């Protein structure tokens, strides 16, 4: 039930865009995105509850495609502060847990 994240790592220059994908083999109830800075705990970014829903947080937005059982995180005009590892957490109906992907390490360079 662990979702698959891609890519595993990406390096961007400031101002460039990136997309991180999170795919599930099982029907999703909700998707949760987190960012973890080096040496710190993961911080919640946003939740997507419905198929086709899109949400935004500063210049970071996400979509949830219920049919494809996947979510994508969009980082536009990246800033140095976006560097970190991004995790998706997936929830399934009836489960008490989130299942976390293996993470995508994003590095933004000047």
């Amino acid at each position, binding site marked *: 039930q662990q979702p698959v994240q891609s890519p595993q790592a990406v390096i961007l220059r400031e101002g460039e865009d990136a997309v991180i994908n999170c795919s599930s083999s099982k029907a999703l*109830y*909700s998707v*949760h995105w987190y960012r973890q800075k080096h040496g*710190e*705990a*993961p*911080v*919640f970014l946003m*939740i997507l*509850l419905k198929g086709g829903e899109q949400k935004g947080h500063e210049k970071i937005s996400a979509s949830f495609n219920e049919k494809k059982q996947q979510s994508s995180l969009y980082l536009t005009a990246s800033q140095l502060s976006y560097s970190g590892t991004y*995790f998706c*957490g997936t*929830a399934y109906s009836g489960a*008490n*847990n*989130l299942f*976390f*992907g*293996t*993470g995508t390490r994003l590095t933004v360079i000047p």
Partner: protein
Amino acid sequence: SQTIHQWPATLVQPVGSPLSLECTVEGTSNPNLYWYRQAAGRGLQLLFYSIGIDQISSEVPQNLSASRPQDRQFILSSKKLLLSDSGFYLCAWRGTRTDTQYFGPGTRLTVL
């Protein structure tokens, strides 16, 4: 508002020594609580979760145990640490309205 505390922040322990990590949550009642371990550069491994006092589910069989003596207190223990127990231990609580989990600051454990 809700806050989650973990202590200690860092810990260096010899192999074979006992362990006790504590997590407390403020500002919410009867939360679901979780213990995760994260090895260096790796993902989040769920160790235990609890839906109430003395209700603990173990996800990974190992030499660790968890207890929840009070509604907002979650403790991770070991009688004898192994080298492989080193890592970043994270406690999290889950809100009542959604499945979102919120993480504490973590405890970095080094077993030598």
